[in-house]
């Protein structure tokens, strides 16, 4: 199969999946009464005064397929309903909370990927040496750690014991005032970048201090996952014939490991990068909850405990769609890198 044909086929495959994703969310929605469901259509709190009108307008008492039609039309118009916990429409709540979460992801993702690849291949290259045992133990303990517990323990030590070294939340009260003052322009709402653009060192330092613990919490579990995978995939690559050839022709060990083995070992790691995304999203909800770090995950948690369905389902839908596209990108990269995927057709 040509690469182009593969891409077209893969793109077409997205349509039924996205349709299914909306059906699943809509199915969950059906577990609620029309009055509760009305929250997903309301764009202004005043409308809650006249729920009957909302039910009438969006046909919430009509057959399911009619409702689905109304619902999906609203989704395409960017209306996901009203989020009670933050008193604003779901769409704008997401846009407002996204930068905080992005800030976490920007720091955690490279740490997870490059750290995991580096440590995993180090361990494999020194199999059964001290460094291998240490990373293996670290990986299996890290993989077993409850994220929420790790976060709280870090908080206990670095906020409690070291008297406020790395505090929870996103900014201190003082810096929060600075950020929201007239003199400070919020270009991107990513505090780090805004602080640099405004040339404000104190805000920069403060937001970095607030980021340390959440980033560590988010990183450890996922790093352990990549590390384990990279180690076993690297071990397999190192046992292959081409490694023997490379060594036999006198290449130095460094080149063998980093050029011949690692590049081939990276392919399985790439295939699971979709899972890393899922791990990050799962982790973000817990991490932001623990540190009271007001991002998407914190908002999802608030919505969940307050049984605010428009928030929860909006968040789930957003993540489902995002995940589908992440997997698309991963698959296309995979096909680009590994010709077996597109030439051999099915890989079972």
């Amino acid at each position, binding site marked *: 199969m040509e690469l182009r044909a593969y891409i077209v086929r893969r793109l077409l495959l997205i349509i*039924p*999946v996205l349709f*299914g*994703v909306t*059906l*699943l*969310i809509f199915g*969950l*929605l059906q*577990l*609620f009464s029309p009055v509760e469901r009305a929250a997903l259509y309301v764009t202004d709190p005043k409308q809650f005064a006249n729920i009957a009108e909302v039910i009438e307008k969006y046909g919430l008492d009509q057959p399911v397929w009619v409702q689905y039609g109304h619902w999906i039309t609203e989704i395409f118009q960017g209306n996901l309903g009203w989020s009670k916990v933050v008193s604003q429409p779901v769409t704008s709540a997401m846009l407002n909370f996204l930068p905080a979460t992005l800030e976490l992801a920007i720091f955690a993702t490279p740490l997870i990927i490059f750290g995991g690849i580096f440590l995993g291949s180090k361990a494999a290259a020194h199999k059964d040496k001290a460094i291998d045992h240490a990373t293996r133990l670290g990986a*299996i*303990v890290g*993989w*077993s*750690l*409850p*994220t*929420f*517990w790790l976060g*709280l*323990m870090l*908080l*206990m030590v670095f*906020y*409690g*014991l070291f*008297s406020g070294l790395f505090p929870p939340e996103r900014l201190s009260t003082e810096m929060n005032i600075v950020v929201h003052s007239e003199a400070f322009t919020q270009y991107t709402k990513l505090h780090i970048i805004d602080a640099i653009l405004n040339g404000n060192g104190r805000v920069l330092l403060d937001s970095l201090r607030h980021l340390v613990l959440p980033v560590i919490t988010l990183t450890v579990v996922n790093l352990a996952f990549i590390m384990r995978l990279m180690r076993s995939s690297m071990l397999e690559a190192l046992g292959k014939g081409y490694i023997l050839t490379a060594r036999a022709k006198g290449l130095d060990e460094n080149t063998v490991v980093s050029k011949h083995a690692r590049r081939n070992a990276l392919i399985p790691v790439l295939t699971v990068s979709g899972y890393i*995304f*899922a*791990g990050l*999203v*799962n982790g973000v*909800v*817990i991490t932001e*909850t*623990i540190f009271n770090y007001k991002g998407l995950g914190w908002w*999802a*948690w608030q919505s*969940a*405990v307050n*049984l605010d*369905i428009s928030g*929860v*389902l909006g*968040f*789930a839908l957003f*993540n*489902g*769609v995002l*995940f*589908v596209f992440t*997997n698309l990108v991963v698959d296309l990269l995979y096909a680009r890198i590994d010709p077996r995927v597109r030439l051999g057709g099915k890989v*079972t």
Partner: protein
Amino acid sequence: MTSLRFMLYQLRRNPLSIIGIVIILTFIIIAIFAPIIAPPPEGHIDPYMIPRDGYSPIPKPPNEEHLFGTTEGQYDIFYGVIWGTRSAFRVGLIVIGVVLVVGIVLGSLAGYFGGIIDEIIMRITDIFLAFPILILAMAITVALGPSPDNVIIALIIASWPSYARLIRGDILAVREEDYVEAARGMGGSHLRIITRHILPNSIYPTLVMASLDIGAVVLYAAALSFLGLGAQPGYVDWGQMISFSRNWIVGPPGNPLAYWYTVTIPGLFILLFVLGWNLLGDAFRDILDPRLSRK
């Protein structure tokens, strides 16, 4: 017999798997003998609710009466962690058991018959796999109403697709083998071929994943109840016990670690439980992976 001896030899060779077995055995003993280790106080009606000693919000450190101290609201931590072992096994075993059955049935149908059945089942798994597990489980729990049973249902719904896919893939790999052809030629029914010839030769990777996943499921369940979507307050549940400690992470000035026991002890129980299953799963994998064995 020789393969059993080989298995035991492999197990002995790897100290980590011994640790895993010991940890899980210990937890099994704790779960079985919970009423003896931490007997419910007299007149206590439901043993799955943690007994309280007063209603003061301030946790009390370990003392003679409360071995591990008490949390916010004076729930006894020792009682909670011991009986919480039962809840952990309950969640882990029920979810994985159901998911295995569903996965084996749907995965076999898809892998064995192929064609339109395969296409339909796989597209459905695609949809479920489009969500991060915790997020989907969270949405389902909210939709069904937070409770321990609904957490179990939510985790089952969110995690069966990966099993169906895994089993399907492994069945595809053996479907065309000669011995399957032979069984077919001798007139074996589909059911017989699947259960007698195909599954025994393709089920091991799934069993490895299942043993690794018991730990993961318990982690997800603990996370959900930590987030406040699990049991009613006071139910014996490790995740919830940690959420009780959230207001007491940092002690009073001058003694920042005053309430360490409220968060550390239940967390260690979760960590050890999950670690035990992970070590055990790793050991299984080393034994069952033919590429690694007998080298």
